[in-house]
């Protein structure tokens, strides 16, 4: 089981959290002008790296806040402290 460091509550079991996928995916600024391909990219395409990955977690059973964790998808190692900024980009 993963141990997820919540920036507000500290490190807790993964079962207290829900997964939110890739971090830093912003809603399109001018959504009215997007073509089908650009909409598709926003809706369906996410990074799927074998390595370091910035991802969102939601502390369902704790502070009920979203935050960002940088985790290695092979080793499950977590890099550095978690961040409450969810536009955050990778540091590694």
């Amino acid at each position, binding site marked *: *089981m*993963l141990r997820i460091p919540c920036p507000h509550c500290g490190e807790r*079991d*993964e*079962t207290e959290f*829900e*997964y939110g*996928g890739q971090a830093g995916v912003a809603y399109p600024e001018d959504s009215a002008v997007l073509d*089908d*391909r650009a*909409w*598709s990219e926003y*809706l*369906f*395409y*996410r990074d*799927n*790296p*074998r390595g370091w*990955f910035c*991802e969102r977690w939601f502390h369902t059973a704790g502070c009920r806040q979203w935050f960002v964790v940088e*985790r290695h*998808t*092979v*080793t*499950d190692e977590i890099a550095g402290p978690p961040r409450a900024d969810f536009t955050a980009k990778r540091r590694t």
Partner: protein
Amino acid sequence: MRISDRPAPPSLLWRDAEPGRAYDVVVVGGGGHGLATAYYLAKHHGIANVAVLERGWLAGGNMARNTTIIRSNYLWDESARIYEYSLKLWEGLEDELDCEILFSQRGVLNLAHSLGDVRESKRRVNANQLNGIDAQWVGPEEVGKLVPILDVTDRPRYPVLGATYQPRAGIAKHDYVAWGYARAADALGVDIVQNCEVRGFETSGNRVVAVNTSRGRIGLDRLALCAAGHSSGLAADLGVRLPLQSHPLQALVSELLEPVLDTVVMSNAVHVYVSQAHKGELVMGAGVDAYVGYGQRGSLHVIEEQLAAAVELFPIFARAHVLRTWAGIVDVTPDASPIVGHLPYDNAYINCGWGTGGFKATPGIGSVYADTIAAGRPHDLALPYALDRFATGRLIDEHGAAAVAH
């Protein structure tokens, strides 16, 4: 069946080929799909100058990690067609490969535990029947007759209200399937190259001309990716982005037990699927871990939840022991349906996104993918699974029938 009754593996398996300089088709990925694709290329299309490149050892990825369930009771026409096509090939596969694969059509029950489940299940049965698939709705009493050890009383928190039943569904021994395809493909001249990791591609204009591997450069006329959970990375090397997320999907087996279960039982709602393998172990599948992961292991709480569900449905299982757990890396698409067809190159093809349903599709997709590659256009059964459906919106939503919540 006792252990001593199992057929021994065939004595001649396959040559451990050295990589050649160039091939008509290079298949990347030596799992079930890759091996089946190579076999059908050689058998049906006369293209035997084929290499199957495998990073590790043959069929050591998801082909060794699945729960071997075979069925075709999917909801939508597109899915029903390809899975039923595959099931029909399974029915003749032992003769086709001249190899015992322990294919056992013992039937599958997909349990319903709520009014919503019942309605959804009956809808699926109706859709299946319209597609000529042998699905039927059975009530709790019949479920109890088919599987006496299943608790069909109103004791469980989520009682069994009925099930869909597909009698032609079943299981097969996954290793024998891989070995059967490998042996037959090898006999037709296909090179199976193990310990050969793909590290990049050479392109020229709109063509892929070679693949660079840990064992050198290999030229190619056509490229066929078949790498399941590792497809994203390979496609990225070609500058192509795929709508995939790779997750760990866990499974486990018990110790060997006397025969107690001769039907495959699946439950989406409480989430477990179980069969008893020929040599006696209970084979159970869990849900996918929520996060992206490539480590071939998942979180223990997923196993705990799965075992709780199994014991709730089958009280007799409380005395069994878990012998071994593991995970495979499944590539999941947004609509829980695969991606099959052209990559944006003239001579490159992709087969991926089977998520939790790849094993049962092995013969079907092998045949369909080989035809697609040989003819340079999508086979009719592959046509709905083109990558562009995520832009056109023609999704094939099989989250309901895919059996594993994701």
